[in-house]
């Protein structure tokens, strides 16, 4: 489904602080599979996740989505692709403060101009499936860590994307909440979603829900 061919990514290229975060990664990720990119801090796993999710373009190499080269596409096209194909769960959850949980969940669908009743129905269903319905009208900053993560997952799912990308999803959760997260992963797998996560938490990458673990070190595949 997603193919990376000799992908490299540099930050501050040509400057004194130039950093190559990803150095020639070739990789193929199958649909309906749960994959974990494992590695220590600074190994390039988050950067690789952003390249997979079209949040950034590689400095060199090719990224193909369903056989189509997306590495040279314009920002506008990438945004559309991102919106339709990927749902993101950030490490810090990145919910918008001051908005309710329901509004946060609805946010990715605003640019699509979906009718409000339809969008609210979708948000409500997602929140209910993640046991967050009672908190729908609570403001994002009032949520606990686990609730905030589930709200972020609901937001990632509102446009019904095929691929869910999660950056260090258990980094801010205790063991109980990490198990709760794995329950959600199992449920998403059952629904046919492709999950790609970064983690250095053994609880996650050793979990039976995970189909494949890809090791990374210093921007290379292990």
């Amino acid at each position, binding site marked *: 489904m997603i193919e990376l061919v000799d992908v490299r990514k540099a930050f501050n290229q040509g400057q004194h602080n130039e950093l190559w975060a990803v150095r020639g990664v070739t990789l193929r990720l199958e649909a309906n599979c749960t994959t974990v990119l494992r590695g220590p801090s600074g190994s390039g796993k988050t950067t690789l*996740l*952003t390249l997979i999710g079209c949040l950034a373009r590689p400095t060199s190499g090719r990224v193909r989505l369903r056989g189509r080269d997306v590495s040279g596409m314009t*920002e506008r096209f990438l945004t*559309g692709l*991102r919106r339709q194909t990927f749902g993101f769960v950030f490490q810090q959850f*990145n919910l918008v403060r001051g908005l309710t949980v329901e509004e946060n969940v609805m*946010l990715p669908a*605003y*640019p699509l101009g979906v009718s*409000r009743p339809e969008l609210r129905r979708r948000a409500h269903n997602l929140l209910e499936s993640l046991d967050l319905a009672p908190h729908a009208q609570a403001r994002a900053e009032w949520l606990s860590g686990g609730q905030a993560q589930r709200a972020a997952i609901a937001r990632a799912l509102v446009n019904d994307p095929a691929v869910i990308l999660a950056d260090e999803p258990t980094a801010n959760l205790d063991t109980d909440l990490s198990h709760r997260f794995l329950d959600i992963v199992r449920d998403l797998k059952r629904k046919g979603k492709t999950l790609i996560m970064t983690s250095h938490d053994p609880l996650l990458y050793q979990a039976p829900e995970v189909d494949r673990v890809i090791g990374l070190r210093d921007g290379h595949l292990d």
Partner: protein
Amino acid sequence: MPNNPWFQRQRYLVDFTVGALARRKGRNLALLAVYALIVFVLASVLLFSQALRHEAAMLLSSAPEVTVQRMVAGRHDLVPAAYLDRLAKVRGVADGRGRLWGYYYDPSVAANYTLLVPMSDPPPPGKVRVGATLARTRGLGVGDVLSLRSHEGHPFPFTVDGTLSSESALLTADLVLVCEQDFRALFGIPAGLYTDLILTVRNPREVTKVAEKVLRTLPDTRPIVRDDILRTYAALFDWREGMVMVLLSGAVLAFIIFAWDKASGLSAEERREIGVLKAIGWETSDIMAMKLWEGLLVSVFAFLLGYLAAYLHVFGFGASLFGPVLKGWSVLYPQFELTPRVDGFQVFTLFFLSVFPYALATIVPVWRAAIADPDVVMRQ
């Protein structure tokens, strides 16, 4: 229409923007208050000057078509009545009359009065009619005595016969109407001399031509046509308006710097929010549209608030803050009701100058933040 995706998208953007404004309540309320205050001040000056110009034009519409003054050594001098006979022979002149008027300085209120002999229905000898403002300042009512000093230094008592309506207060604030006999006695002007002459012209389109003929007939005179007076008044109010604007320019400049700083600077929270929105699938254009809505909502609301307050200030409260400066009387400030009058072009200019620069200023930094790669948010 409400189900149209474009329309729905704009509604979401506006909703989100209103929410964003409410989230930064303190900052936005402070900005709105200062913004509205500046619009209020500028709109007050513009509305008031506009109304004054209109008021003056209305009153002067009944002024004589041509006024003839005699000039001696470049100074305005008394005109002999014999000039009227010579002017009557000028083609185009329908009628000519001598006018008596002058100024009187009253040390008790440190103000100048304008004394005038009316063309029709003058007060009886020993009586005067006074402007409403003068009556108020001197505490005069009908039957009270207004004592002036004659040119020889003798007291010249007048009984107040009536006061002039406050509708014409802009021009009659300091006016004292007396009869010809008293005027000549007070100022020592002998019979056969007038302050100036006024002419009625048969064809209003020939006023300028008649003025030229007057000058040829009587080279020691200066004919003044009504349009000249109107232009002088307009220029006077323009000048006063300009002076106030210059004084206010400091405040306006301070606001521009303040607004530019507020509009063009993005807080860390806003940058983060833009990053999140981009990462979850908002396009750069969505974010720009959202911020444009924000700029428009703030500036349009501030404009409406400021303009409405200015309208109430000028037409409801008599422009109590700037009135004295713009009216220009040093001591006798006229009290009168201005007719509400709004000039569409002026509103548009003020709207354009106050709304668009701000709305555009909000766009530049957002554009800079919004074109950054959305992966920044992953590294926060």
